[in-house]
């Protein structure tokens, strides 16, 4: 029984691979974001920044590299928040009845769905990294091969725990909802503040005070901090701002994300316990 979640995971991955339009669009979407939004934004930002004096010996990164981390985070957020939709489909097509009437522990359902979402997000993150480097993002610039491997593992660990948290949240919403429209509505409502009140596209220092507080504790900011640390380095300049991360900053960010995932799991567990699917 302890490996029950692998059954749910197995099935959800079958579905992911078989559902061709979903598969292709989910892999293409992040690359498109990076290609269009990334190139457009970075060409204007880099022009603006061109005249700014740079302290000698500092690691300066272009906007594409800076926001590349944000795009990884954004894709993970969108995919994960929407990931619970499979539960809603199962519910509406009656498939959830088979699962809920089985002896399978409900925590395993939540966990299996979470894990398959994490897999999808990790695949997407890797695609963005590869595609980003292809179009000129300076990920892992100046890293030794060992550092690159370490960097990738670090990024995926951050993406994974963040995805898990938002998948639990999405699962909790989905199991309580009647229609996909409802889930879509709530998802859209949530993505706006989470995405824009973060350091995905710009530094948060110039934010008004309340927005800054929101941003600092935003799981999105914690994730992006982690990605930038592992993809760019602990010390760099972007958009004229000096970024410095210590190891304890990174550890704290990760702990923050773990607490978030834990809370979301409790929420999902509570909603599943209450779930009546007939």
């Amino acid at each position, binding site marked *: 029984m302890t490996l029950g979640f692998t059954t749910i995971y197995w099935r959800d991955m079958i579905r992911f691979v078989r559902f061709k339009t979903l598969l292709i669009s989910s892999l293409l979407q992040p690359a498109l974001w990076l290609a269009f939004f990334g190139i457009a934004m970075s060409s204007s930002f880099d022009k603006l920044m061109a005249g700014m004096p740079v302290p000698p010996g500092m690691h300066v990164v272009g906007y594409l590299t800076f926001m590349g981390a944000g795009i990884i985070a954004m894709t993970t957020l969108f995919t994960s928040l929407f990931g619970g939709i499979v539960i809603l489909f199962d519910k509406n*097509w009656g498939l959830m009845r088979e699962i809920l009437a089985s002896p399978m522990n409900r925590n395993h359902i939540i966990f299996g769905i979470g894990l398959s979402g994490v897999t999808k997000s990790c695949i997407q993150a890797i695609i963005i990294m590869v595609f980003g480097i292809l179009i000129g993002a300076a990920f892992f610039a100046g890293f030794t091969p060992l550092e690159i491997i370490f960097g990738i593992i670090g990024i995926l660990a951050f993406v994974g725990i963040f995805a898990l948290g938002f998948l639990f949240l999405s699962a909790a919403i989905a199991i309580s909802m009647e229609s996909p429209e409802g889930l879509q509505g709530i998802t859209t409502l949530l993505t706006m503040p989470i995405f824009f009140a973060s350091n995905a596209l710009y530094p948060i220092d110039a934010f008004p005070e309340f927005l800054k507080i929101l941003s600092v504790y935003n799981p999105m900011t914690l994730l992006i901090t982690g990605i930038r640390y592992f993809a760019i380095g602990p010390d760099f300049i972007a958009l004229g701002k000096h970024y410095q991360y210590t190891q304890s900053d990174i550890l704290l960010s990760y702990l923050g994300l773990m607490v978030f995932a834990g809370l979301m799991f409790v929420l999902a567990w509570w909603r599943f316990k209450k779930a009546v699917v007939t």
Partner: protein
Amino acid sequence: MSEQVHGNDQAIISVENLEHSYGEFKAVDGISFTVKKGEIFSFLGPNGAGKSTVINILITLLAKQKGNASVAGYDVTNDAQKVRESIGIVFQDITLDRDMTVWEILEFHGRLYNMPREERKKRIDELLTLVQLDAKKDERTKNLSGGMKRRLEIARGLMTRPKVLFLDEPTIGLDPQTRMRMWEYIKGVNNEGTTIFLTTHYMDEADQLSDRISIIDQGKIIISGTSWQLKNTLGRDIIYLETSNNDAAVRLLQDLPSVHNVKTKTKGFVLMVTEDGTKVLPVIIDTLRNAGIDSTTINLKKPSMDDVFVFYTGKDLRDEPAGKPVVILKKTWRAMR
């Protein structure tokens, strides 16, 4: 494992004073019944009678509100996990993932129930042969016909060798041949010791398969028994009459000693008689003729489960809306023979 009752005549499902409401509406209003180990038990009732609510409580998908219910010796509330391990379910609607193959559907189910790999493999092969889907093993379910889907769902319900198999309208929408083959499977499964809890809208199905039947309407059980017992409550024979003066005819005939029940219909009326109908009929015709009433239509038949259902629920599944010509009603009646 907790203590369990054994022996052939023991109740494998027992329900006592079960009540369930949705808001103000009482869907189940104090139901009690037992299903004996090894039997095929049919649970009949019109739409909205409360069947689904009872089933959902028994299969632990709906939390019990009031009363007691146990399946395979386990309480549905306190031992839900044990109940889930003991039962198989074939749901009313098709619940197959369109994009999974026949084999994957069964494999997934076996894994959900934590069956060991070897046993899974063996069971899947056995069941695919049983329901004649070997050749479709790697076909996605969206490419199967309605009958194949149903057979696959029945195979899935049997994967775990459940003590009780719940079949919620298992042959709905199937052609007569497939339905009959399905009955054979169900009987075969039952012969191997699985207790069957069946709901259906097909009265012939209930009649053919069940050891015992309960009819439920408006949240209450109206009558229970073997199909033979239920039919007998209607009398030995049923005589349908249309006359030139139905009201007078009914008044006249209901006093005959062999007539134990009269039910008026749109164009005529039904007499339920306790004696051999062929002997009673001449008496009826004489009585009517002496009173100057002409009979225009006469029909004599044995009571069927349809008649039982219509009599006790007052709902004629095939009743035409009022205002239709009489021919249709006659045809309907004949079709029920």
